[in-house]
C-alpha cells in the first residue's frame, strides 16, 4: 500500500438555498487505501460524494486528482476521470445480462460495427475472475443475488479503469456471507492500488476493512484518523459531538424482562406461507419485545407479512387477542391494531411527494376526518406532537418526506404507525441505513414503547441490535423456527450457533420433512 496521494479535496463549501450543507470540508485519499467517510445523516457525506462524482458543483474549494485540479460538471466526466460510484441500491438493468451491464454504453465492436459479443463475454468473465468470482456472464443480472449484482457494479467500475471507487452503504442489503465476498473484493482492489471511499453505518465493518477514517458533523470537517487510533466510543462521540461516556451509554445492552405472565397478544402455530415460511410458531406477549433472528432468506420478513395481512398463510393458525384470525389485507390488520413498519423505506414506506403531515396521518386518515373531509387542524395537533416526540428534524410538517434524511424518514414512518395506537408493532429492519444518533433514538423509543405495554416484533440482520433491544430472540432458518434464546443466552455466538447447528440437521432431512423434528 503506497502513501502516494490520489485525491485531495480542500475547503469544500456547498450551499443550497437556505442551507449551508458543507462548510469547508477536507478529504484526502491515498492510493490503494480504504477510507471510511462517517457522519450522521445530514452531516454532509452524500453532498461531498455528489460533488466528487460530479452530481453537485461546489461553491468554494478545490479538488486535486493525481495532482491535477479538476471539477466535474457531470457524473460522466467523473467516471471518465476514474471515479466510479457503487450505490446503496444496486443500479443495474435487471433483465440485461451480466456482460451487457458491465459494458453498457461501451460495448466492444466488430469491424462492421455490430457488438462483438464473443469478446464482450470473454472480457466480462475475465474482470469478474480477477475479483475471484466466476459466474455465467450471459445470464440476466437479476438471476443473481444482491451481493453478486453489487459485484457486477464493481466489475463495471474496474473495467472502466477506476482509480477511486465510492461505495455508498454497499453492505446494507447484503447478508453476512455476501459481505465477506465484498470484503474480499475490496482487498483485491487494494492490491491493485485502487482507492476506496467506504460509507457505512456499521461500525464493525468500518473497523474490519478501513485504513483511515474521515468524520463529518453538521457539514463541518471533524478530522481524519488512522482507524487503529480511534476507538469505537471515540468515533461515535466525534460523530454525534458528545462525550465518550455519553456515547458508551448509547451502546448499552437491554436487560431482558421476563414477560411470561403477561397476556398473549399474538400467537402463531405451525404457520406456513409459500416456500419461504414452512413452519413458524411463537407467542408474543403484552409489552414484550421479541427479536426475530436469521440470515437473509430465512423467512423473517415473510412471517411478518403474514401477521400484517400482506400475504395470507397457506396453513397453520394465527391467534390475535384470543381470537383465531386471518387478516385479509394490510387495512384489515391495521384496523385490528397490527402495524408493520417495512424494511424498504423507499418502496414500501414513504409516499415521497406528500408532506410529513400527510405521511404520518395516512394510515388512519379516517380518524382525522368527518364525512370524508380531512381536518388539517386535527392532523396538525397529532403531527406536531410526533415531530416533537420523535425528534424529527424539519422546519415544519409541510416538507415533502423525500427531502428528509433516511433517519428522519424512518421516524416519520414510525410516527405513522404509532399514530394508529397499535397493540402490536412489527419493525422490519428499523434502523437499516440510519446513522448512529437516529439509531439510538429509535432504540430508546422501542424500549419506551414496550414499557408502555406495546408488543413489538423486531426483525434485524444485526444480531447486536436484537440483543440490545429484545427480551427474547427467536431464530429462523429456511422458514422454520429452529431455536429460542432468553435471558443471558441472548448472545451473538449463541444465535450463530443455533443457525449453524440446526442448519446441518435440516439439510440432512433434505429440508422437506417438516414433521421430522416434532
Amino acid at each position, binding site marked *: 500500500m503506497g502513501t502516494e496521494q490520489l485525491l485531495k479535496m480542500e475547503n469544500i463549501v456547498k450551499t*443550497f*438555498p*437556505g*442551507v449551508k*450543507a458543507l462548510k469547508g470540508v477536507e478529504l484526502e485519499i491515498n492510493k490503494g487505501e480504504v477510507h471510511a467517510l462517517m457522519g450522521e445523516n445530514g452531516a454532509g457525506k452524500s453532498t461531498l460524494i*455528489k460533488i466528487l462524482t460530479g*452530481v*453537485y*458543483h461546489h461553491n468554494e474549494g478545490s479538488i486535486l486528482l493525481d495532482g491535477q485540479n479538476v471539477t466535474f460538471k457531470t457524473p460522466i466526466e467523473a467516471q471518465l476521470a476514474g471515479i466510479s460510484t457503487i450505490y446503496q441500491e444496486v443500479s443495474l438493468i435487471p433483465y440485461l445480462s451480466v456482460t451487457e451491464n458491465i459494458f453498457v454504453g461501451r460495448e466492444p465492436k466488430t469491424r462492421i460495427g455490430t457488438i462483438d459479443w464473443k469478446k464482450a463475454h470473454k472480457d466480462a468473465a475475465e474482470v469478474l475472475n480477477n475479483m475471484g468470482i466466476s459466474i455465467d456472464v450471459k445470464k440476466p443480472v437479476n438471476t443473481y443475488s444482491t451481493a453478486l449484482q453489487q459485484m457486477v457494479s464493481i466489475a463495471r467500475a474496474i473495467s472502466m479503469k477506476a482509480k477511486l471507487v465510492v461505495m455508498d452503504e454497499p453492505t446494507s442489503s447484503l447478508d453476512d456471507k455476501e459481505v465477506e465476498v465484498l470484503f474480499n473484493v475490496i482487498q483485491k482492489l487494494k492490491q491493485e492500488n485502487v482507492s476506496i471511499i467506504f460509507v457505512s453505518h456499521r461500525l464493525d465493518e468500518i473497523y474490519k476493512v478501513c485504513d483511515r477514517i474521515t468524520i463529518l458533523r453538521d457539514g463541518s470537517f471533524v478530522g481524519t484518523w488512522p482507524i487503529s487510533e480511534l476507538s469505537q466510543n471515540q468515533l461515535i462521540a466525534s460523530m454525534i459531538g458528545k462525550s465518550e461516556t455519553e456515547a458508551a451509554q448509547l451502546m448499552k445492552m437491554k436487560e431482558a424482562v421476563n414477560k411470561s405472565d403477561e397476556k398473549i397478544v399474538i400467537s402463531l402455530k405451525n404457520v406456513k406461507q409459500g416456500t419461504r415460511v414452512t413452519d413458524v410458531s411463537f407467542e408474543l406477549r403484552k409489552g414484550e419485545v421479541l427479536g426475530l433472528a436469521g440470515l437473509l432468506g430465512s423467512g423473517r420478513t415473510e412471517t411478518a407479512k403474514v401477521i*400484517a395481512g*400482506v400475504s395470507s398463510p397457506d396453513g397453520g393458525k394465527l391467534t390475535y387477542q384470543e381470537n383465531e384470525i386471518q387478516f385479509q*389485507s*394490510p*387495512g384489515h*390488520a*391495521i*384496523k385490528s391494531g397490527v402495524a*408493520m413498519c*417495512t424494511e424498504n423505506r423507499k*418502496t*414500501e*414506506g*414513504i*409516499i*415521497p*411527494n*406528500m408532506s410529513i403531515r*400527510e405521511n404520518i396521518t*395516512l*394510515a*388512519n*386518515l*379516517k380518524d382525522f*376526518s368527518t364525512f*370524508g*373531509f*380531512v381536518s388539517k387542524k386535527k392532523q396538525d395537533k397529532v403531527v406536531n406532537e410526533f415531530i416533537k416526540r420523535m425528534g424529527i428534524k424539519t*422546519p415544519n410538517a*409541510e*416538507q*415533502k418526506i*423525500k*427531502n428528509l434524511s433516511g433517519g428522519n424518514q424512518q421516524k416519520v414512518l414510525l410516527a*405513522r404507525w404509532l399514530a394508529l395506537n397499535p397493540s402490536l408493532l412489527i419493525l422490519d429492519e428499523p434502523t437499516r441505513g440510519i446513522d448512529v444518533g437516529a439509531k439510538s433514538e429509535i432504540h430508546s423509543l422501542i424500549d419506551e414503547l414496550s414499557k408502555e405495554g406495546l408488543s413489538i416484533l423486531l426483525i434485524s440482520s444485526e444480531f447486536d441490535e436484537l440483543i440490545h433491544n429484545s427480551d427474547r430472540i427467536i431464530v429462523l432458518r429456511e422458514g422454520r423456527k429452529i431455536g429460542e434464546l432468553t435471558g443471558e443466552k441472548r448472545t451473538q455466538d449463541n444465535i450463530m450457533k443455533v443457525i449453524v447447528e440446526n442448519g446441518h440437521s435440516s439439510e440432512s432431512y433434505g429440508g422437506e420433512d417438516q414433521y421430522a423434528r416434532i
Partner: protein
Amino acid sequence: MQESNVKTTQINPHLEKKFRYPLNGEMVKSFSLPIVILILFLFNSIFTDNFLAATTMWNILLHVSTTALVAIGMTLVIATGGIDLSVGAVMAIGAVVSTFLLDYNIFVIILGTIIICALIGLFNGAIISYIGVQPIVVTLAIMIAGRGIAQVLTDGYLVSFSNPSYEWIGKGKIMEIPVPVILMFLVAITAFIIIRYMTFGRYIEAIGDNEQAAELAGINVKKIKMIVYIAAAVLAALAGMIETARMAAADATRIGELIELDAIAAVVVGGTLMTGGKPFIWGTVFGAILMGIISTTFNMNNIPYSYSLIIKAVIIVGAIYLQRANK
C-alpha cells in the same frame, strides 16, 4: 401549492439557477398556465376582431366543456398512475343509450345513461384492479369494442331526435351562461374539493405516488382505483350527453372521437404527472381552455387548422419539459 419548498433544490442541482428568480418551481407550475392564457387573451383582444364580445368567451368555454369534463375524469385516473383510453367510446355509448331512453323523463335519460356508462367504468376498474391487466391494455380494448357496440346499436346511422328538455343540457343557458359551461365548473369545483379536502383525494395521490406503500398503509387500493375508472366513465357519459343534446342527434361514429387524446393533453399541460401523484384539477381545466383558445385564435384569424395542431403539440412538449424540470 405555493409553499416555497427550499429543499427541493437539493434533489435536482440543475435547478439551482432558477431559484435566483422570485418564481420558484412550484409557482411556475401553478401560474404559468393562467399567464399563458392571459397573454393569448390580450393578443386576441388586440388583433382578433370581435374577440372581446361576450359570446366569443362563452363559445370558447362551450367548445372546451366536454373535453374538460372528460379530462377531469382522466386527471383522477392518471393521478393513480393509470390511463383511460376508453372515454371516447364511452361517450359514444352514452350518446346512443340516451337516445333509447328519449320516451322517458329527462331524469331517467340522464340517470340511465350514467348507470350504463358507470358499468363500463366498473368493468375497466375491476379488470385493472382485480385481474391486474395494465390500464392501457384494458381501456384500449374497450375503446375499440365500445365504439363498435355503439355503432351496432344504431346500425351505423345517425339518430336525430327532438326532445327540448334533453336538448337544453347542450343548448340551454342560465343567465347567458351555457349549461355545459356551468356543468363543467360544477364538476371541476366538486372534483377539486374532493381532491383537496377529502380522504379520497389523499388516497388517490398516495396511490399514484407509491402504490405499494399506500397499500401497506391500509388503503384499499383496488376499491379506489375502481371508483376512479367509474368516475372517468360517468364524466364521459355526461360529456356524451352534452354533445348529443347540442346536436339533437347521436352520432356513434364521430362523437367523442379522439377526445381521449385531447383529454390526456389537457391533463399533462395542467401539470399532473403521467406517472401518477398529485392531481391538478384546475390545471386540467386551464389546460383544456388553453387548447380551446389556441384553436379559436387560429380559426378567427383564418389560419389553417393544421397550424393550430402544430402549436398544440409545441405546448404539450413544453408542458412536459416544465414538469420534468420541477419533478
